[in-house]
């Protein structure tokens, strides 16, 4: 219930920021869409019995984001170099990357981080590993991905474990 109220307040704030109009009719539409959204979210929770958890620390996540932006800048340079050079990408490889995160949200963050850094794309997620495709596979890539994996695992708040 409290979660629903917080979500409603957040959605209302988002609506006000987005519209910037304060006429009665518009405000009524906004309130109705917030209520509809909350209703749909609650019903979805009931139907699939699968609540999303947020088992990650706030400050460590911000620290991880800054590190991730640095990585994105680095790998952007690498991929841009391949694009602008005359050679064709012939070092492509598909491989498995072990995953050590417990919660779903951390696994999603790890998968999206892999995809967000140019040069690697998460193709499939399985129980304890991801299938990743790299455009320019080098020997150090596995260590770099293991390092990223460890960093994502570090932002998880321990003790909550897998919530299904």
């Amino acid at each position, binding site marked *: 219930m409290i979660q629903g109220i917080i979500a409603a307040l957040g959605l209302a704030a988002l609506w006000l*920021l987005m519209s910037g109009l304060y006429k009665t009719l518009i405000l009524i539409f906004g309130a109705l869409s917030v209520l509809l959204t909350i209703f749909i979210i609650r019903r979805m929770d009931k139907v699939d019995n699968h609540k999303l958890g947020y088992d990650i620390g706030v400050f460590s996540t911000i620290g991880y984001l800054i590190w991730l932006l640095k990585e994105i800048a680095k790998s*952007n340079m690498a991929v841009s170099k*391949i694009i602008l050079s005359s050679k064709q990408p012939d070092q492509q490889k*598909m491989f498995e990357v072990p995953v050590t995160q417990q919660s779903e949200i951390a696994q999603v963050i790890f998968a*999206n981080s892999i995809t967000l*850094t140019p040069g690697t794309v998460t193709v499939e997620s399985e129980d304890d590993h991801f299938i990743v*495709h790299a455009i320019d596979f080098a020997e150090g890539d596995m260590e770099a991905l293991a390092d990223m994996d460890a960093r994502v695992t570090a932002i998880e708040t321990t003790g909550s474990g897998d919530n299904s």
Partner: protein
Amino acid sequence: MSILNLVFEIFSWVAILLGSAFMVIGAIGTLRFPDFWSRVHAVSVADSAGMLLLTLGMCIQGGFTLVTVKLIIIGIFLFITGPTATHAVANAALVSGFLPKGADRFRRKIVIADNAAKKAKKKKRSPLKGML
């Protein structure tokens, strides 16, 4: 004050021009690369660096206004949905059996996934039955 404005102006234009350059690089890569799997990577250059730098530059141009808040929200949404969309495209290629060279050992899993999908299709009649 005008010096500060000038610095912000230069910074925002550098960001916008760099972002545009990354967008162009991504487009060049998409056209130049030989196959599907390498083109996915070329697009992700435009998706990450191009998008982030352009949003940053436009935020600085907007100043402390509602426009900047909206731009930040757009940036956050694209930061999350961009890689998700890329993953969806790549995953669709894998599931349909469109594999890169030397990755045939991943094909076995697709057959299993295919059978599961067929089974689900047979059983499925009315997905909303019992939920309403």
